[in-house]
């Protein structure tokens, strides 16, 4: 099993990586510090899993070398599970990338990282509803302190592929309900 950690620069991918694997890679409050990928092993659901910390990327259409590296990794691991790490204070930006990855038919789990910041900024996110709409597991995390990480690890096995057409319909129906 291969797990890719993907997300925008500086959303805490490296911190999630350290928490999941017990590795010691540098975390910085600083965009663009991970320009190469790091991999490590851990046990998820009793099975050994390879985890790769992919350099930060804004979309799946690469604009610079670091993003190119990210896309190469994604293409090389067709059978990987992707953990899309989102900044909970900027959900929309992160969802764009997550959606792109789902469209490429990868099984996805969403980590709403920096949850504590969102709470402080009065942003509330209906996690259950988000899970229901997207059809993939959504887990709030605070990677720096480790909150939500074991939950995230458990949910990785529940990651599922999404039919984009059905997803679109679900989203359209939402509007009708209101």
């Amino acid at each position, binding site marked *: 099993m291969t797990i890719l950690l993907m997300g925008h620069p500086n959303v805490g991918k490296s911190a999630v990586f350290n928490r999941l694997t017990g590795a*010691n890679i540098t975390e910085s409050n*600083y965009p*663009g*510090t991970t320009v190469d990928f790091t991999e490590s092993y851990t046990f998820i659901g009793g099975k050994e899993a390879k985890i790769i910390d992919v350099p930060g990327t804004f979309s799946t259409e690469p604009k610079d070398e670091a993003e190119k590296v990210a896309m190469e990794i994604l293409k090389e691991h067709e059978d990987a599970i992707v953990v899309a790490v989102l900044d909970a204070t900027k959900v929309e930006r992160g*969802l764009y990338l997550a959606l792109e990855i789902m469209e490429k038919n990868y099984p996805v789990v969403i980590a709403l990282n920096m949850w504590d910041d969102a709470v402080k*900024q009065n942003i509330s996110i*209906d996690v259950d509803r988000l899970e229901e*709409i997207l059809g993939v597991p959504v887990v709030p995390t605070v990677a720096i302190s480790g909150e939500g990480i074991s939950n995230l690890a458990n949910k990785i096995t529940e990651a599922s592929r999404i039919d984009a057409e059905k997803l679109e319909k679900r989203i359209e129906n939402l509007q009708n309900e*209101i």
Partner: protein
Amino acid sequence: MKFDTERRWELIDKISRETVNYGADKTTLKTILAELTVKPLTGIPFAVAVLYGFWAFFNAFAGFFTDGFFVPFFDNLWLPWLQDIFPLEGSWLYYVLVGDPGATNSFEAFGILTSGMFVAIGIVLPAIVAFYLFITILEDSGYMPRLAVLVDTILHKIGLHGFAVVPMILSLGCNVPGVASTRTLETKKQRFMMMILLSIFIPCGAQLGVMLSLIPEYFGYIMLYLLVGFFLFGYLLDRIIPGKSPEIMTDVPPFRLPTAANVTRKLWVKVKGFFTNAIPFVLLGVGVVNLLYLGGVIDWLSSVLEPVFTGWFGIPKETVAPLIAGFLRKDLAVAQLSAIDMTGFQLITSVVIISIYFPCIATFSMIIKEGRRSGGILKVLGGSLLTLSTVVFLWGGLLHLIGMVLGVR
């Protein structure tokens, strides 16, 4: 199936309206403080305070270990002990390992076990611990990118555009990750430009530390001259090299309180890296220079290069040996320079030349590695060497000229 960009945003908009609720937009003290640090009027005085803080912290911390403990240890115990027990005085082995048998301090003995160990452990180690501790706290608190934005704003005001400030600031720690981080730049031209400028003009943390420890009185002048060179040659390269250099945007993260665990982890990674990568190179540097002395290579090189050194750059020919050591470690080279007998202005000039004449071996191999991605290795290598030699001769020679015009020695 795949959506197009517009459709994707539409869908996300609908999802977010259903699930995300942005509470009343609070302007918190934190966000306003964050703004104040990037506005020039309030940001510059604060940045001055932070830089002063860096200097004061560095001095106190590195001075505590170097002057308080390591200097007395190496000078009063280690050196006399080695000179006492080491056999074979007069042999080449003694010369390489212990150095001058009559030396009274570890600094001027020039052996691997004396000067090499003293420079590596006594001077550079406290310096890099102090340096990285401060940098890590700045990084984790989120002040670093703000400093980058502030510098960027100021550069724009004086008409300099397209400089990647984040790689610049990273390079101050070590040029290697600085060069690697140019990968986040969009065009080949920008990558090449920043790579070469960083590796020529930005001294790394270890070199900064040694300069602050050994020649603090000249530190300001050296940095000023290097930074002016950075921007001047950046401006020129931008004109000369074909291609585009688009604006660089930095994402500014929120302020956070650094956690002790992460700070110590990062510091530990750096210190471990220092022991495994840097110390062997420092010792090797001392060893290589000593062997070259014994083989007469340095004396020969000195006399061959003397016209260039004294005539063009105005520095004594003895600086050849530190220049050779500088290929391996610049911090070692600066330490060796400060032990050579010369005038203040000559010292400034030679430290500037040490900084710009060639990147250290680790940085150079990173440039080669990155060059493959940025327009072909031959092009990058050729371009760098051409820029490098032009810069060394022009910028080094100019400093000599400035010295002559001002009449300083």
